[in-house]
């Protein structure tokens, strides 16, 4: 484990969250008591901060907030609980448990997140412990799915390079395990684990320390040519380097991140910067040392400037490399060659090198539920009952029914047909390449709709695209309800970030392969303006695009916006 490095104290008063962490006795706080307090279905703010480290937090149904206030009822409090699934992998048994959780404790649905995790929304306080215990039975947990720690580790869901993918996926699991907090608080609070009093004498969190990280921390591994995990949006992005069809190591990119604050140009989305190459055996060590640099240097005073990207931008990449080399005791090699061709998923059946079949199905915005005319949740449940391979949640909120043995393919296929489960082929390529965060009504940060609105907006944009013959042209479109950026909207070829009810900032010029940020094109506009503004651009794109030219490249070439390859120039 890491040697202790004594650092000069940081300027500025530690943020309130730092105090909460320091007083929490390794993430316990008063949660045991407040989760049982029957007077309110909520918990106090301080405990809610800690709750995040347990993969969950308190929300309320914002649609009902004003109405309930008038009714003399407290907000419709409910918990969101995110399940950590490195690389988005879940066995059919685990799928069935999550399906049951969504229906029994949640709002009757599952959300597949942009970080390949399961989210269940709408869990009442009294059911949280049962939820945690029941997923535990299925070998699932929520540890560190949120909070100032390393989050769910993402991994490409490459369905055809089977062996290579399996090896990279295994590394993502190892990374996830290696970077987990070690406190027993989770087991005590939720699983009735024996109480361990984490005293000073014992090193409870040898890697994180008692204050954990200054802010959330995200890691993902890409396998070129797919950049489905948006490797440059991660705090640490690893790019698998393959030689002779064998994994040899990873390129390392650091300091990516999406979040910003409206009106504060000192905050910005940023792309990860490549700093070198490491042999695969050094993956865990490298990740850990990078994480400790952020632990020691990240801003603990102002949370909106606390992400790793600001730590690096404040000191420069050279400083970072030197610090890393010093901590590692060896130097990274030169970055190896790689090439990406897309961030989106490819749908339908694909046969892997090992002869097994994989079906990627389209799930609009990752929402699995039974719709009036589309029994998606039921269909997937029926498939999970007979499936013997794995499910893989994609970074684009879609789902892969993976590792279907050839003799099983017909059974799965029949169920897909029976429930009309779609690969999205009948949708526009725009819709197939869309991502929206949850936003309203549950997300406390949301300023405008996302998941509930993007589908209808796309329908309206589709009719413009149809007019110009662009329905089958792949364009990435992403919408976030706030600038926190869960949908990675700042990288979309078309990006929308919520400003207020019905109002969005429109960003253009993101890269289809995820190697460029977009840039603001119009501020604070509603649907009518959105459609009016996009229409002539599409018209021109249809007429004037070059062969294979993606929409994001086109708008830059035509001067609608400037290309942004460094977040520090995102606002300029």
């Amino acid at each position, binding site marked *: 484990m890491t040697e202790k490095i004594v650092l000069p104290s940081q300027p500025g008063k530690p943020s309130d969250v730092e105090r909460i962490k320091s007083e929490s006795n390794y993430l316990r706080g008063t949660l045991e008591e407040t989760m049982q307090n*029957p*007077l*309110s*279905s909520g918990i106090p703010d301080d405990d809610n901060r800690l709750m995040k480290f347990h993969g969950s937090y308190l929300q309320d149904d914002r649609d*009902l907030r004003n*109405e*309930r*206030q*008038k*009714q*003399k*009822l*407290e907000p*419709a409090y409910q918990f969101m609980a995110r399940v950590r699934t490195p690389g988005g992998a879940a066995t059919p048994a685990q799928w069935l448990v999550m399906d049951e959780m969504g229906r029994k404790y949640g709002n009757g649905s599952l959300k597949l997140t942009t970080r390949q995790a399961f989210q269940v929304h709408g869990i*009442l306080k*009294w059911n949280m412990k049962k939820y945690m215990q029941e997923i535990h039975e299925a070998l699932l947990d929520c540890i560190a799915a949120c909070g100032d720690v390393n989050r769910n580790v993402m991994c490409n869901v490459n369905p055809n390079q089977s062996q290579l993918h399996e090896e990279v996926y295994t590394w993502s699991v190892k990374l996830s395990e290696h970077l987990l907090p070690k406190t027993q608080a989770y087991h005590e609070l939720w699983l009735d684990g024996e109480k361990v009093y984490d005293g000073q004498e014992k090193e409870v969190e040898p890697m994180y320390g008692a204050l954990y990280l200054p802010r959330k921390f995200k890691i993902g591994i890409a396998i070129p040519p797919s950049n489905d995990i948006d490797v440059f949006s991660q705090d640490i992005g690893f790019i698998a380097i393959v030689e002779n069809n064998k994994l040899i190591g990873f390129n390392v990119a650091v300091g990516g991140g999406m979040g910003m604050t409206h009106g504060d140009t000192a905050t910005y989305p940023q792309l990860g910067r490549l700093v070198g190459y490491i042999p695969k055996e050094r993956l865990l060590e490298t990740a850990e040392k990078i994480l400790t640099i952020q632990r020691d240097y990240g801003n603990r005073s102002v949370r909106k400037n606390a992400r790793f990207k600001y730590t690096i931008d404040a000191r420069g990449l050279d400083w970072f490399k030197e610090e890393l080399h010093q901590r590692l005791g060896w130097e990274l090699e030169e970055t190896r060659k790689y090439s990406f061709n897309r961030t989106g998923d490819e749908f339908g059946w694909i046969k892997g090198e090992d002869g097994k079949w994989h079906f990627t199905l389209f799930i609009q915005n990752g929402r699995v539920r039974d719709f009036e005319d589309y029994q998606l949740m039921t269909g997937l449940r029926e498939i999970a009952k007979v499936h013997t391979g794995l499910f893989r949640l994609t970074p684009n909120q879609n789902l892969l029914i993976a590792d279907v043995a050839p003799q099983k393919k017909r059974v799965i296929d029949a169920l897909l047909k029976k429930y009309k489960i779609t690969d999205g082929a009948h949708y526009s390529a725009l819709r197939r390449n869309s991502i929206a965060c949850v936003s309203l009504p549950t997300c406390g940060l949301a300023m405008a709709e996302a998941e509930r609105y993007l589908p209808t907006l796309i329908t309206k944009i589709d009719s413009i695209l149809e007019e110009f013959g662009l329905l089958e042209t792949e364009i990435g479109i992403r919408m976030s309800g706030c600038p926190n950026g869960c949908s990675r909207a700042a990288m979309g070829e078309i990006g929308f970030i919520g400003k207020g009810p019905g109002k969005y900032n429109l960003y253009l010029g993101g890269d289809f392969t995820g190697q460029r940020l977009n840039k603001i094109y119009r501020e604070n506009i509603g649907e009518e303006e959105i459609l009016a503004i996009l229409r002539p651009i599409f018209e021109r794109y249809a007429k004037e695009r070059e062969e294979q030219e993606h929409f994001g490249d086109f708008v830059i070439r035509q001067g609608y916006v400037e290309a942004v390859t460094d977040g520090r120039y995102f606002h300029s």
Partner: protein
Amino acid sequence: MTLQVLNSPFNEEQVKQLNVLLPTLNDYQKIWLTGYLSIAPAAGVAVLEEPAASIEEEVKSIATEPQSATILYGSQTGNAQALAEKLGAKLAEAGVDVTVASMSAFKTNQLKKLTNLFIVTSTHGEGTPPDNAIQFHEFLYGKRAPKLEHLQFSVLALGDSSYEFFCKTGADFDEQLEKLGAQRIAPRVDCDLDYDALAAQWFEDVKKAIVANDAQAALSQVNTATKEVGGSEYSKKNPFYAEVLEKINLNGRGSNKVTYHLELSLEGSGLTYAPGDSIGILPENDEQLVGILIEALGFQQTEVVTVEQQSLTLAEALQKKLEITVLSKPLLQKIQNYTVNPDFAALVQDNYKWKDYVYGRDLLDVVQNYGPFSWNAQQFVELLRKIPARLYSIASSQAANEDEAHLTIGKVSYETDGRGRQGVCSGQIAERIEIGQKLPIYIHSNPNFKLPQDDATAIIMIGAGTGIAPFRSFIEERAAREAEGKSWLFFGDQHFVTDYLYQTDWQGWIKDGALTNLTTAFSRDGDQKIYVQHRLQEHAKELYEWIEQGAIIYVCGDEKAMAADVDKMIHAIVAEQGGKSAEQAAEYVSSLKQQQRYQRDVY
């Protein structure tokens, strides 16, 4: 100012009772009482000598031995008590030496010494006596009941004819007193919800029976000049039209229930109330239902009928004056005179059948199912009783809302035979009354459901559903008074998320200390149904400590669905925590009742 043993000529028990009574009096009542007490010596108690000396002598010379009478009441909501007191005043005016008391406060060993006993009692839903009559009722029916040949008596029974056991408790007393040998000096009168006229008649009967000569009666004329003025300008007979300031459904989306919080303006009315009091609403029937009924009857909406010497259209009479939504045995029997339908005769005769039929059905059902009828519009309306007022516990404190009264009204709605039906008043509130409109109301005081005078006294409040209403008034009042006493609310309903009535109010009062403990029971949130009595059990030890330390217990809500189980649980807790036998526990609880430390407002 609070009376004490030291600053008044009364003993401890009297002080206690006076202190309960005096603060509840309005100005008129105080003035009346002063006059009443000043004339009391004429009835034989030599307290004051001065006033009306000449008349007193005259009375004495004629009626050498003044009559004495004891009036006992069994009262749940205060109606019987009010009538008993009214009779007491009337007899006292007539020179009778009167004692008015609750049955629970009456010492049964005094029975042998009485000459005249008048009983005013209500009846509970299932034909059981009201709380403060239970023991006396048991005593008269028990082995220890004495022979009462020396006793003259009469009974005034209050009830609601829509219940099967209409006026049963009154009938019980009437029958048992006779069995014990007592002489009935005036026939029992059974009153329906609209009891004023019948009660007044009974008063006269009783008075005539014991006041032997006119001289005593003449005396009463002298001192009753202010009698009919009325305590407040507004009363049940002259309701105040209160504007609806706010109307909110307290149940969140997805609830099985609809419970309205109504804020009424009392501005300019001069109406006053204390926590525990109710408001009576004079409701109207649903215009639409009236229309359908008239059509089914084959009458015209505009036909003129006479109701209470007043001419009005049939539609108006059925909408505003007469009850059309409740069926009772007496009503069915009256209707039978107008139909030859053999099925109807069979229905009325079969005890099982008619009970089953009247449940959830109304007049329209009868008209549609059992015609043809031979009545005309006037005959029809004469079958019907007046729409009774609906009483709702007030959910606010006047100390905190000077010109307002808040009500908590659960909407009653159900379906029978494929037709949706609604409670008359709750349906009107829910569907037909909007903010800005006015409702005819009056204050109905409930002396049997009152906060302790002493703010340091701990209170335990147990309620389910709309039974929470008076407790909001209690806590709001205690918060305004900055009362120091501890308080504990037990509240039950179906679902935490949607049915936690006044949730943010309680949370606020818990936070600022006006409410000490809050324990909730939501019956449909878990696998097992948890009700308030289960929560009482969970807190048995602490509850018993509170009771031992002098806490007052209040129960409000549905008798069948809650109060009966809560009562059982309170007995069980007392037995278990106090190491008492069932009998000892029962004694303990009944002594709580006698001390007014176990008060119920159940329906």
